[in-house]
């Protein structure tokens, strides 16, 4: 593959991924409003377009045309930088996620992953430290929220961002440790390898996903830590509206607020993608031999999307069901329950691999 084709393919992949991700983010807000409404026995948005399907577009237009207020008391440069940081770190993670197998089109074969290329033997390869880079980007995501709160120069924002920094740093440890079990089993940090290790079925119908291969506990630790990392209910103390107005984005309006909003949903999507790749086998799934050929080609993408959709629905379901933690409970839960549990899981996995149990 020449440098020019490589560049063109990369740019096309980036554009497609960004467009799809932004659309998914927009429609996740609608999904959330609809599902939460149903849980609370309401209809949810249903006036704009059929079933309210144009609601995200209306929301976006509203955000753009709203007055963009910059309060006089803020630290201007950091105030402007914060939403950009939050949004960028949230959007970058998706570049490392393999969403499908190698695509063959127009005589070019390339994996459905921005950071992936096809090796000489036709196999998809990606950065060998892909998962660690995702963790690193997630770690940098704290700064958007922390700086937003500090630069706003208001007590609610500052309290919100202090809470969120402490929370994200604490839960990152449990999050990272819960993934190590999977890494031990896969023996690689490359997400392509991890997905490849999970293809195949037992007795033709139980998929060989890491979730079913002894990583149950890790999966639940990851889920809970991910809720905390994305500041979602029941861990949404950084923006607890009953005590902090809106937390770290109290002083933000118009598109700057929308960027935080989109960052939260993009984070939800990427966390769901990583959970699908690591625990639910990525794009692998049950074959559907009755489908015609053209749909067969989209089957891996369908399975991946279905898994991500499942996680998004789970997020919203939990939001509609659970109350918010108290702050000391949240910290105690992270450090005294999740962290030791993740360590025990790691040791059990290492023991299992050393003894050759799986």
């Amino acid at each position, binding site marked *: 593959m020449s440098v020019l084709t490589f560049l063109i393919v990369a740019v096309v992949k980036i554009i497609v991924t960004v467009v799809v991700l932004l659309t998914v983010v927009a429609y996740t807000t609608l999904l959330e409003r609809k599902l939460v409404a149903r849980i609370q026995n309401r209809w949810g948005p249903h006036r704009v377009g059929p079933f309210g399907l144009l609601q995200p577009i209306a929301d976006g237009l509203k955000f753009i045309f709203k007055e963009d207020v910059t309060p006089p008391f803020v630290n201007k440069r950091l105030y402007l930088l914060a939403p950009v940081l939050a949004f960028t770190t949230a959007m970058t993670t998706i570049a490392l996620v393999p969403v499908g197998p190698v695509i063959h089109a127009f005589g070019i074969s390339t994996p459905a992953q921005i950071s992936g290329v096809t090796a000489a033997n036709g196999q998809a390869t990606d950065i060998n430290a892909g998962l*660690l880079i995702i*963790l*690193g980007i997630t770690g940098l995501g*704290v*700064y958007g929220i*922390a*700086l937003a709160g500090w630069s706003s120069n208001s007590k609610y924002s500052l309290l919100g961002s202090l809470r969120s*920094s402490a929370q994200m*740093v604490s839960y*990152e440890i449990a999050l990272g440790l819960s993934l190590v079990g999977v890494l031990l089993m896969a023996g690689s940090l490359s997400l392509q390898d991890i997905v490849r290790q999970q293809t195949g079925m037992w007795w033709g119908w139980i998929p060989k996903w890491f979730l079913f291969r002894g990583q149950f506990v890790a999966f639940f630790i990851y889920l809970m830590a991910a809720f905390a990392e994305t500041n979602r209910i029941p861990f949404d103390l950084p923006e607890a509206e009953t005590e902090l107005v809106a937390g770290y984005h109290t002083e933000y309006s118009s598109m700057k607020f929308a960027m935080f909003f989109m960052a939260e949903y993009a984070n939800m999507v990427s966390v769901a993608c990583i959970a699908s790749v690591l625990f639910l086998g990525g794009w692998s799934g049950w074959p559907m031999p009755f489908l015609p050929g053209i749909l067969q080609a989209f089957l891996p993408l369908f399975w991946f999307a279905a898994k991500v959709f499942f996680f998004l629905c789970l997020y919203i379901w939990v939001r509609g069901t659970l109350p918010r933690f108290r702050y000391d409970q949240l910290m105690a839960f992270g450090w005294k329950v999740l962290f030791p549990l993740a360590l025990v899981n790691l040791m059990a996995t290492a023991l299992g691999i050393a003894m050759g149990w799986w």
Partner: protein
Amino acid sequence: MLHTILFLIFAVVCVGGAINLLVQKAPIASALSLILVMSSLALIYLLLGAEFVAVVQVIIYAGAIMVLFVFTIMLLNAGQEERLPNAGKAAMLLGIPGLIIGGAAVYWVVTHSSVGGTRVALGQLYGSAPSLGRLLFREFLLPFEVTSVLILIAIMGAVVLARRGEQ
């Protein structure tokens, strides 16, 4: 070629960030410049082929330690840095010879270091996770384990210091 261009970009960002770190008076701006320096250093490591070290640099330094720095600055709401009178003179007296010595040392290292008779080229170092892990757990197992004991002692010391205030 591409490596060299990328290296130059990140090197300039890194040095610029380091200078900004010293020039800025607000502590938060200095902390942010330090994050920039660490991130661009990580990218230079990545260019050298040391992907594991690069990511660890981001996760631990930029992602964990600097969050604590920023957290502390936010919590204390630290204002402007106070400068001593005559600090400029002292900086001149110590800084200029220091710069010259440092530059000479860097020049010597660059011209004299070699791997197998040739100069170190970009991408020639081995820093992938498997090779680093093999080094750590085979050749350097004892130092590695001793370091973990050292860190454990540091943690216990921190707990003792934190508890002293409560009594």
